[in-house]
């Protein structure tokens, strides 16, 4: 029972972070209609930004959020402006060329980082990296709980932004019907640029929050890209509430999988769930809950 509860708590905490990753992906999916296969690589960049701040300037990873999020926001905007938006005007046989473009971007990001930092494993060991609190016999990782709290705050802030602000409403309008939104005087290209920046900033937050508990190496992006699309499909493409459900579900599935089946299955579980959801629940959780 204790093991079960322990796993449950770990899964939910990790799920909070995954939700943050999934939210960014979902926003991009909603507005652009594409799966961003460079999502994990963007997160990796944010982790390196945080690492540099921590290692060379002694900035606490949590304060580094102030730098990592804006810098990834800008990077995301640049990618959208100069690499993805121009593709709208290119006529190609395969409609998937935007998705493929994100793969190319992901590769370039990974290799540029490898160029600068080499393939070595890095880590940002903080004083609290392995700190644990006990609540009723269950140990709770301190940095993971902080990450969970920050992720929740950011998620709430995002919802406030999407519901209450004009810009947020424009984003929702474009994701519901780009053509109609454009007719209403919304500049869809600009919205796409901002959304890509926003999605990148969200995943940057997740990366920064993960750094104290993870090792860092250039190829870390790939597994997280896969997690991101699993979460997005799980939640229902373009559904923000679904992304939170998807993130928590994946967090729990991975936690229980690695506890009860074996550590090495951790990544595969997500992929198998992904295939099952694609086949038996197309539309993801959105279809069950209609949110």
């Amino acid at each position: 029972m204790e093991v079960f509860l322990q796993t449950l708590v770990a899964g939910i905490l990790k799920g909070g972070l995954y939700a943050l990753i999934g939210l960014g992906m979902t926003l991009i999916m909603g507005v652009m209609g594409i799966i961003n296969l460079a999502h994990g690589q963007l997160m990796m960049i944010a982790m390196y930004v945080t690492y540099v701040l921590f290692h060379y300037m002694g900035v606490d990873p949590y304060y580094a959020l102030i730098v990592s999020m804006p810098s990834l926001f800008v990077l995301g905007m640049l990618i959208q402006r100069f690499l993805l938006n121009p593709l709208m005007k290119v006529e190609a046989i395969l409609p998937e060329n935007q998705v493929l473009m994100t793969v190319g971007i992901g590769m370039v990001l990974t290799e540029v980082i490898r160029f600068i930092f080499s393939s070595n494993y890095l880590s940002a060991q903080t004083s609290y990296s392995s700190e644990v609190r006990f609540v009723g016999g269950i140990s709770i990782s301190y940095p993971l709980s902080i990450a969970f709290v920050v992720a929740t705050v950011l998620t709430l802030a995002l919802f406030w932004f999407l519901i209450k602000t004009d810009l947020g409403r424009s984003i929702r309008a474009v994701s519901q019907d780009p053509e109609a939104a454009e007719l209403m005087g919304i500049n869809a290209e600009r919205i796409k640029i901002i959304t890509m920046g926003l999605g990148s900033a969200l995943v940057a937050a997740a990366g920064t929050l993960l750094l104290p508990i993870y090792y860092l190496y250039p190829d870390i992006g790939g597994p997280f890209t896969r997690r991101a699309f699993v979460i997005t499909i799980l939640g229902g493409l373009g559904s923000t509430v679904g992304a939170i459900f998807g993130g928590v579900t994946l967090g729990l599935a991975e936690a229980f999988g690695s506890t009860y089946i074996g550590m090495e299955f951790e990544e595969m579980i997500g992929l198998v769930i992904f295939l099952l959801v694609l086949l038996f629940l197309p539309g993801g959780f959105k279809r069950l809950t209609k949110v």
Partner: protein
Amino acid sequence: MKQYSGAILLLAVMLVFPLAVQDAYYQHLMILVLLWVAIGSGWNLISGYAGQVLFGAAAFFGVGAYTAALLSHKLGISAWWGLPLGAVITFALALPFGWVCFRLRGPYFALATLALNEIFRHIATIWESLTEGMVGILVMQTFVSKVPYYYIALGIAVASVLTVEIVVRSRWGYYFVSIREDQDAAESLGIDTLRYKSVALCLSSCMIGLAGALYTNYMGFIDPRVVFSLHDVSIAAILVGIIGGVGTVSGPAVGAFIMVAVMEIFRSGGFGFLGKLSSATGSPFVATLTKYISEAHVLSFGLLVIFVILYLPNGVVGDWPILKKKLLFWRRQATV
């Protein structure tokens, strides 16, 4: 016959190539090109013609490769039997996969193939009692010389291109392209889209699986990271298809040549040219440059993906008229 004269000429050149060029290094590069012709043709049939983008070619490549390796490793049978058997097994994998996943459309199908790719890579890594996991499997190579491998690869590449050529001129080809252009229209014109998408996938997977089995025999060593690689196999297959020209018969051949050439130019620093240059001049700058360029070969690959999608979305063959116009324009400007 005239329309095939170029192809026949090329084939003749390819047939005498290993006799003319004895250097094992260039023979090796050509074998890689031929392997990519087969993989690219397979990718092109399902993705370029039938429009169902395969993001996980490595799933079939790896299964073909492991079929050959396991035959020799577990059963002590010659890995060459992996060629026919690999094709059969990838076929047997593609059939149910297609039947299940072709209910998904467009990007969803692409993601499902990507997931299949990753799942197989994990299985091959985890199931150590069968696959030896990350340690990989060593297979004794049959020939010391590269020439026999070259001709076998040539045979497979030619067979792949011919298969595509014959299929796309037939009823199947019309059906594939109809499905790519508009699946609803195709269905309402009496085309069983599920069935013909599966046909295309099975044919494609056979070509890719065959290439995988040949890879095992030729390289003599495989591990999950290499043969189930998302970047080096799956994405590279897409790149070969796109560089050459999506939905063209000769596209994959052109694409394979360009991709191997570009990668190798980076990896080897201009086929060793930069290395020679730096030792000849003794310039530390050229030496550093050489080192960086060879380290950047994967980076070059990513940049190539971006460049091709932005500027050559229909590939060298597909955009040839535009490309020719641009080249002529440059030449005219130069002479003025």
